[in-house]
């Protein structure tokens, strides 16, 4: 059960990542690409938690915690640049 579940879920995450990456390559403007990057970073947070569950390592969760907290700051910076704020 566990192995099949792992493979199915990881394939779905990979699929989501690929679709977001297509938008990243296509996206005509910088803002579109930032949206794709935002989406990819959320997918990666989920992936990190899931891989930690697969390896059964509790301390690995810290990495995804740091990602969840800091991931949005980079996007906020780019947004502030776009509106001419910084």
């Amino acid at each position, binding site marked *: 059960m566990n192995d099949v579940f792992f493979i199915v879920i990881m394939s779905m995450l990979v699929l989501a990542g690929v679709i977001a990456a297509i938008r990243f390559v296509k996206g005509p403007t910088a803002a579109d690409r930032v949206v794709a990057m935002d989406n990819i970073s959320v997918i990666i947070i989920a992936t990190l938690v899931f891989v930690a569950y697969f390896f059964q390592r509790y301390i*690995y969760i810290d*990495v995804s915690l*740091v990602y969840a*907290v800091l991931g949005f*700051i980079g996007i906020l910076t780019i947004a*502030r640049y776009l509106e001419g*704020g910084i």
Partner: protein
Amino acid sequence: MRKLIIAALLIVVAYVLIDAFAEFQFGAERQGIKDYFLEHTPTDLQVANSVTAIIVSYRGFDTLGEVTVLFLAATGISTILYRRRSKHTGLNPLRKSPEASLIVKAAVKLLFPMILILGAYVFVHGHLTPGGGFQGGAIIATGFLLLLISYRQFKVEHSVVMWVESLAGIFFVTIGIFGIIYGPNANFLENFLPVGNLNELMSGGVIGLVYVAVGFKVAAELTGVLDTLVNIRETGDNKETKE
């Protein structure tokens, strides 16, 4: 023509790299040093995270050197950019740039203390979880960055930054000297505290103290660098004069 030359050069580089790595076996045992550390860190120092033990304890002097390099870089950036800044004190174009939206400001109020707590957690638990002084310091500096980009009137007090940085550096060196005085082998940065038990907060001897010092130092340095970078626009000698 230029592209052809670049392509030819790339092929040469690729050939050299392939030749160099063809015999190389990744993950193969080279010097047996890996086993030594994996065996000895849990028993010598009671540290759960071997990487931390190597960085801070076995190679503690290197870490002091790295922190010094960072300090020199931060000082260099401040020196170069600070001179420019004092040249045009008259104009302040940063005050005219649009403010962040009310929602971002409110969220920053809420999130900033939480980021500080997260950073403190990362560098206090350097010897138990992944992470350590450098990462924790970077997280705290990111928290200050959040304030810098969303509040125009927020200012970092450079004197406070300088004091925190110097005190943390002095603390680091003092721990090293205490190692000479009280350590069993009288070496610099040697462990002189009881090592405690594996997986507890008070374990690993001096590692926790060193990481607290490194955390404060890195946080202060990076905050200073970011503040300098964000405020260069106040000189007005970039966009305003070019366009």
